[in-house]
């Protein structure tokens, strides 16, 4: 028997309902409005009064309308067919809907229930299995999509039967497993999961020990993101957060990308729909869209669904992680999610925290970030969810609650600076303020020494110091004037500019420069650092700046050429010539 309720009060998208039976916190319910049902979630209960947040416009709702409670929490559908899909925050397939406008109460299936999948069994009769263990697999795009014991099944089971290799629909029974009391459970390719709970069907979650290559020099070399790690990109509007995230989604060395457009511009998502089907994944050669799932809850969609969207994306990411895949989860922007929390907290008349955000904002954010990670599955294989979110600080001020709360939980901080953006130094990642905690991990240091060279982290820190020295020298030059400072000041300043222009800056719109693989980064970084550690004779500050400008120009040309191609080598020899002409 479902619990039934009737609407008592309405304030914006917060509705109070008098209920006739048990309800649970975060339970899903539907308001019956003429011929459609509006989805809502319970967020507070007082006596027989349930407070629900409605995922749609509440226009036209009346006191006394019927509400049906579903006896389950907000769930995602996990099954083959999630890749290349474009969902709203509640996992409605947007491509499936035929109307131009998103009409009230319209829902669409998350996956195609009629599609046929080529199933291959992986488990045998008699195997002992627990949640997340693989029973079989189907090819989805170019990955082997594993069919697992549903995550919600918490006991130990024995495989009683597995269907033979063949073509099946997702809803067909593919296995039967038996629990300790002898009860049989039918397994299909579809399972449901309550999105706000982390999927923990793995053996262990070690500290991250590998670097996830993103193809961005300012990230991979200067402040690497670990596989299974977390990072965030705060920046004022116009600093290039979205361009940076899109660039990473195109190039990153991941098996699956989940992009969450959370309360952002629809035209930015349209760019993904329009371009990704035509762009190649640089690692596999398949089309980018084939490895991508998009959760699109743009800024004009209902606020409550925006909150759900980040969890929907995370649950899908964790699902693919359990197949031993490398998942990269991107959310743009987590500030919009925090604002959704603020709007609801406000309507619930909770006492506000800083800037009217809810008091538990920090806890909610860190709980979310903690779901990322590299894990060892029960079968010994590894999978990972790496999370990178953007933050849109109000007024560009990094001392606001969302940035501060995120800083406490994310391990990488990529601060985009307005000043760099204004002077068109892209990516605008500030080399001084940004950091990656992973550089301090001995595991990562070891990994970098093996994949690059000995003493790599030391070298990177050396480059950071040079940039800081250069900035100090520049300030002195500005205060005292070009000819009133020793020539070493100019040399220091220009060395930092050399690292900036020759290495850190990268053109996301250039075909060659946009993606810089690790070997190329290794080579360029060594070249730039060699120059920086050399001493040069300069006649005066004008000659000094002329010399470095020429070197920078040649380095930039190298970045635009094919690695180790003829042109590249030509520019390299130009650099060598310039250097040897002035080196002491």
């Amino acid at each position: 028997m479902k619990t039934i309720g009737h609407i008592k009060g309405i304030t914006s998208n917060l509705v109070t309902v008098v209920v006739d039976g048990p309800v649970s916190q975060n339970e899903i319910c539907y308001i019956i409005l003429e011929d459609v049902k509006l989805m809502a979630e319970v967020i507070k209960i007082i006596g027989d009064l349930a407070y629900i947040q409605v995922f749609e416009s509440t226009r036209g709702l009346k006191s006394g309308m019927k509400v049906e409670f579903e006896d389950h929490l907000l769930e995602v559908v996990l099954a083959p067919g999630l890749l290349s899909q474009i969902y709203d925050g509640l996992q409605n397939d947007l491509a499936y809907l035929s109307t131009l406008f998103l009409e009230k109460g319209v829902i669409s299936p998350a996956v195609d229930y009629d599609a046929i999948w080529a199933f291959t069994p992986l488990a045998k009769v008699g195997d002992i299995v627990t949640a997340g263990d693989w029973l079989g697999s189907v090819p989805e795009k170019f990955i082997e999509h594993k069919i697992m014991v549903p995550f919600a099944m918490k006991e130990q089971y024995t495989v009683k039967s597995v269907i033979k290799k063949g073509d099946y629909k997702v809803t067909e029974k593919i296995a039967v497993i038996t629990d300790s009391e002898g009860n049989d459970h039918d397994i299909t390719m579809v399972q449901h999961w309550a999105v706000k709970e982390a999927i923990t069907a793995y053996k262990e979650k070690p500290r991250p020990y590998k670097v996830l290559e993103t193809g961005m020099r300012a990230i991979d070399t200067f402040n690497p993101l670990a596989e299974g790690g977390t990072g965030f990109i705060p920046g004022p509007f116009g600093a290039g957060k979205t361009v940076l995230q899109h660039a990473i989604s195109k190039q990153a060395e991941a098996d699956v990308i989940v992009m969450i457009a959370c309360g952002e511009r629809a035209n930015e998502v349209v760019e993904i729909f329009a371009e990704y089907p035509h762009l190649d994944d640089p690692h596999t050669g398949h089309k980018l869209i084939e490895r991508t799932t998009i959760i699109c809850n743009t800024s004009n969609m209902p606020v409550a669904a925006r909150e759900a969207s980040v969890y929907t994306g995370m649950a899908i990411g964790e699902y693919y992680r359990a197949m031993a895949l490398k998942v990269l989860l991107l959310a743009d922007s987590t500030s919009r999610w925090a604002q959704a929390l603020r709007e609801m907290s406000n309507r619930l008349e909770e006492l506000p925290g800083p800037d009217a955000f809810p008091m538990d904002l920090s806890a909610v954010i860190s709980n979310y970030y903690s779901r990322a990670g590299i894990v060892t599955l029960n079968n010994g294989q590894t999978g990972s969810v790496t999370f990178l979110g953007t933050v849109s600080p109000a007024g560009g001020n990094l001392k606001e609650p969302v940035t501060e709360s995120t800083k406490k939980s994310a391990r990488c901080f990529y601060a985009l600076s307005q000043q760099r953006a204004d002077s068109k130094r892209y990516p605008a990642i500030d080399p001084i303020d940004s950091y990656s905690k992973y550089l301090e991990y001995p595991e990562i240091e070891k990994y970098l020494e093996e994949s690059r060279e000995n003493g790599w982290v030391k070298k990177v820190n050396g480059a950071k110091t040079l940039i800081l020295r250069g900035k100090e020298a520049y300030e002195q030059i500005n205060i005292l004037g070009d000819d009133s400072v020793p020539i070493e000041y100019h040399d220091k300043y220009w060395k930092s500019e050399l690292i900036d222009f020759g290495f850190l800056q990268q053109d996301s719109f250039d075909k060659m420069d946009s993606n810089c693989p690790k070997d190329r980064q290794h080579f360029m970084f060594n070249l730039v650092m060699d120059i920086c550690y050399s001493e040069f004779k300069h006649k005066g500050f004008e000659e000094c700046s002329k010399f470095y400008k020429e070197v920078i120009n040649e380095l930039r040309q190298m970045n635009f050429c094919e690695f180790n191609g003829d042109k590249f080598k030509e520019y390299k020899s130009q650099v060598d010539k310039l250097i040897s002409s002035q080196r002491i």
Partner: protein
Amino acid sequence: METKAFQRVYTKIENITKATVTVKASGVGNEELATVNGNLAQVVKIDGDRITLQVFSGTEGIATNSEVIFQGTPPTLKVGDQLTGRIFNAFGEPIYGNKDIGGEEREIGGPTVNPYKRIQPSEFIPTGIAGIDLNNALVSGQKIPFFADPDQPYNQVMAEVALRAKADRIILGGMGISNDDFLYFKNVFENAGASDRIVFFVNTTENPPVERLLIPDMTLTAAEYFAVDKGEKVLVLLTDMTLYADALAIVSNRMDQIPSKDSMPGSLYSDLAKIYEKAVQLPNGGSITIIAVTTLSNGDITHAVPDNTGYITEGQLFLRNDSDTGKVIVDPFRSLSRLKQLVIGSKTREDHPQVMNAAIRLYADAANAKTKLENGFDLTDYDQRTLKFAKDYSNELLAIDINIDVTKMLDTTWDLFARYFDKAEVALKNELVVKYWPK
């Protein structure tokens, strides 16, 4: 508002505050319209049979026995071709002439376009103003505000842009504009012979401020009619969005909501996004392009209104008084059109992106030279030349009184390069230099 048959009338008001009244009634829908003593009001809260209504004109003079009549529908607009050339108030009623315009009644503030059905914007909108076309090209389906101080001529610039933009339809939503500005727009459009493609929705400073909350939705419902039903290219002008946000703050304050930054409601971002995101390129060829005005206080873009706007819109156009030339220019540093990449160099001449960047870079060098000069340092020969370049660049290109086509703008920029610099200093791609450097 005329009274329809079978409407229920209530005459016992329980509570009256500055902006709201509460009455006991049943069968009332959320956001439904009503009249209270003849004044238009909207349902904002339902608690059992206690219905709270926000009275747009304020509650002055309303008595506990005033008549409350529910209309049974949320705010609507009658759409049709007969909207053209007419001027409406915030409730969608014609201000002048025949009150009954007929047409199909549509709810305002309707649903969102499915993002999947959108088309990537790709049509260049030339305005003749080089500060816009050259450096910040506009694209149909874009949403972009002018960020300007109250003393700057933003309404004039916007009217110019609207007339030159070659849109099928121009719909102006005036919020809290002065009667003088309203008459200015009216005259400019009438004198330009554009009455046959203009629709006005106006709330002037003479009207109650809360009424202006309806203006953007009215304006955009009309825009959707012309773009979706008729496949037209519609240009929507919204001025001034800061005054709209002020009205939001007033209401939120009267509803006892906890204010967030700068006394604005916590939902400001969503409220503004709902409006701006109506900008769209449709599959049928129709489009809605939104050009808005956000007035700043002393150029402060960290205030909640411009700040939230910047995160929603696809760029912003900054107006600035240029002390070198005494003209108002479109600031090349702080202005940005996020969609310009979709048209420059493809819909305009191939050299557009490079020429644009080189000119801005040289203009930035001039700004550095100026700082040097102010700090009392000697200027190099190069510094001197950048200063001269900057002055001509402001005068011949950035000033808002320029009206030339984009090819002429590019030619003018090449002329300026050649006037003050050698080829290496401009550092453009060699093939472009060979082709376009003035002989």
